[in-house]
């Protein structure tokens, strides 16, 4: 409880973190109150005439109309739902998988660790996007399938992070004492080690949200999303394929900006959290490559050099 208070106190003092919170709040409100905020229901059919298709912004339609003659602003507001659901749910799942693997590998060490970490390395070196494309084309499309794909590919960094922390924590006095008192492995892991690594995991999970949102947008943009769901990536897909030659910027720009908006908000929050819970980062406060990397979905590239040392003295 005390440490949580400390985190919040420090967090409040970081202006960028508060900006991030504000930006995220806007997106959350959009998603939660979409039916109230949106001027039209984008799932409702509308009768259109050819001049309605990609009609530029004007009265009644602040951001114009899309390639099906529907209101862009309403789709943008509803689109926040899918993006945020995918972001939060898949980062939760990948946090869960990553933590389990990291704890197990770090605590038990030896062959278990070797097997688990080689598998992690294996997943890390395969470029995410092509692998996701292959999996989606085999499984088929759908919201839950996208969430699943992102979850099972984005846990690797968390696993490495957790393992390296566990390696150091399990050698500390209080763990040795608990073991001497006869505590089971399960109890030691859950009661003594997990709380120590939890803040780090949460900071990482927050950063993962933005990677997941971008991954969902990427897949939808490439036409692999669920066409019946309105998401920002899907809007970009339609805009790219049907609106560019019409120079309909009002359909292309808003979803793009929305994706940047939410990702930026989450990265600002995540960075602040990370700085608080991982004091080691303070020594590098001028430049932290990992933050840039999470922007780029290219995490595996620099992970080797940037992951925390295996054993902290």
């Amino acid at each position: 409880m005390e440490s949580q208070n400390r985190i919040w106190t420090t967090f409040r003092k970081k202006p960028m973190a508060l900006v991030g919170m504000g930006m995220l709040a806007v997106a959350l409100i959009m998603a939660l109150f979409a039916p109230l905020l949106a001027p039209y229901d984008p799932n409702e059919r509308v009768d259109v005439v050819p001049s309605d298709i990609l009609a530029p912004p004007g009265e009644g339609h602040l951001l114009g109309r899309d390639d099906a003659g529907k209101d862009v602003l309403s789709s943008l507001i509803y689109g926040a739902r899918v993006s945020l659901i995918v972001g939060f749910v898949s980062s939760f799942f990948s946090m869960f998988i990553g933590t389990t693997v990291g704890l197990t590998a770090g605590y038990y060490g030896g062959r278990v660790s070797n097997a688990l970490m080689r598998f992690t390395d294996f997943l890390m070196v395969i470029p995410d996007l092509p692998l996701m494309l292959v999996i989606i084309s085999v499984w088929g499309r759908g919201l839950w399938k996208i969430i699943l794909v992102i979850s099972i590919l984005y846990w690797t960094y968390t696993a490495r992070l957790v393992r390296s922390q566990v390696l150091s924590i399990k050698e500390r006095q209080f763990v040795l004492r608990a073991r001497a008192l006869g505590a089971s492995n399960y109890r030691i892991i859950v009661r003594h080690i997990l709380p120590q690594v939890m803040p780090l995991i949460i900071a990482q999970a927050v950063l993962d949200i933005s990677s997941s949102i971008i991954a969902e947008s990427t897949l939808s943009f490439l036409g692999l999303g669920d066409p019946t769901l309105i998401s920002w990536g899907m809007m970009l897909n339609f805009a790219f394929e049907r609106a560019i030659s019409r120079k309909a910027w009002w359909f292309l720009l808003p979803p793009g900006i929305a994706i940047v908006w939410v990702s930026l908000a989450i990265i600002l929050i995540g960075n602040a959290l990370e700085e608080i819970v991982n004091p080691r980062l303070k020594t590098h406060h001028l430049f932290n490559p990992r933050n840039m990397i999470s922007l780029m979905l290219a995490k595996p590239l620099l992970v080797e050099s940037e992951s925390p040392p295996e054993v902290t003295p």
Partner: protein
Amino acid sequence: MKHKLTILLTLMMATVLILSACGGGQEAPEAPAPAEPEAPAEPADAPADEPVTLDVGTTYIWDTANPTFGWYGYTIRYMIYDTLVEEMGISDFQPGLAESWDVSDDGLVWTFKIREGVKFHDGTVCDANAVAWSLNWTLEQDVETFAFYLYNFEEIVALDDTTLQVTLSSPVGNMEYLLMYVWIMPESVWGEMDYDAMMEFEDLSAAIGTGPYILKEWSEGEYLILEANKDYWRTTPVIDQIIYHEYATEDAVVQALLAGEIDVTDTDSIPATAIQTLQDADNVEVPIMGSTTIDELIINSHENGSQPASLWDPAVRLAMAYGIDKQQIVTVAYLGYADALGPVVPASMGDWHNSDIVDIPFDVAAGNKVLDDAGYVDSDGDGIREYSDGSPLEYRFYGTDDSTVARIMEIIADGLEQVGISAPPTLMDEDSLIALYPAFDFDLVYWGWGLDPDPDFAMLIFTCDQREEGGWSDSGYCDETFEEKYVEQGITVDHEARRALIWEMQEQLFNDRPYILLTNAKNIQAYRSDLFTGFGTATGDILWKAALLQGKPAR
């Protein structure tokens, strides 16, 4: 040191990423523009007169130079090869390698007078003997892309160098059509090959014909160069060289035309949403032509298919027809450049189109009434009606992954939902969709294709035999009465009698609904009117041989 390197690397990657993200909108589509084909346009020893080059933009050139298994690039193949009779437009033709023809009173023996002095691109003579060899070879090898047109040719012999005699097993009413797509190919290339060698032959010499253009070069996925055949028997082509450029997307083709990289666009290569932009551009002409392309909702009608029993009920099919807003599809997908379609033969096919058929209008109330009367009720209140066995009217609805297709399927699904039928769209790539066909493992499919200039093919695909492996059937439809009429129309020589049969068949299909026809889209192409002029539009494709040969430089 190592740290600096990391920072530098990260910065570089970020820059690249940002640049590519910013430029993605406009630069990416232009990227695939092939630079290579420009080179041959200016040969080192250029004559005083610059050769006239026509640059064509397309999204797909073709699959192979070998026409015995190549299903794409018919426009190009039509310029390379000749046929005995040539397609001029919809149900319109002119003599090709055959100058004239005659039929015996019993309709079984056809005599063709073959043009004199015609040579293949490799210099070998193309007289009646060569034509007879080519047709016989087509049948012997059972060439999958066009041997089926000669289904009732019994004997093909050359009586002398200019006379060809064909004996049929039964009379036909559409001989001109049957010969329109049967390429005349040289013995010098194909004579020694067995079937397997033929199906593996990928050399450019597979594209040796007698047509107005000679295939010079082809780089898969990039470009294709055709050079004028100065010895072409009909005329000397004015355009010396035609270069096809392949682009990744339709938008890229539009941008290439606006940027002056290409002079003309291929069929099916510009999106409806770009028409306004092109019409507003200077020096760009956008002919809007009739086409035989049809879009349809296929309802699985194969008795061994995996569709639910309720899909067989005529009431369900009728209610679906009431639930589909075709006008909305015309507006959203084609921006008005299409017509709603009732019978399978569109109005662009002239008198083959059954104009007596009154299409089912978009009428949700009528659709609901049909299902109410047939006893389908929504007993659990989820908005979806249930069949007598308690199963909901829920169908698998597939289409190919394309954003325009997605919009069309969305409109169909929305409409069906209003009459209490659930059919959420599933998009998949074309190969996955085709893979479902051998087992007829689907309920509804959105699909589109183009009719031949004669209605025969459009009827053929609804016959029982076509459901076999490799057949054309996509609905699984099979009906005895229809079968008899199909055979009869094939041997009916009198046009009026054949037309009546074709009309009856359209009506039967309209009532049984293996297809719910949706739209007949226009063919829209664009060309640089300051550089070229004169292309014919009657063929529905300004690059079709007959239309292209009329084209000439504007200056």
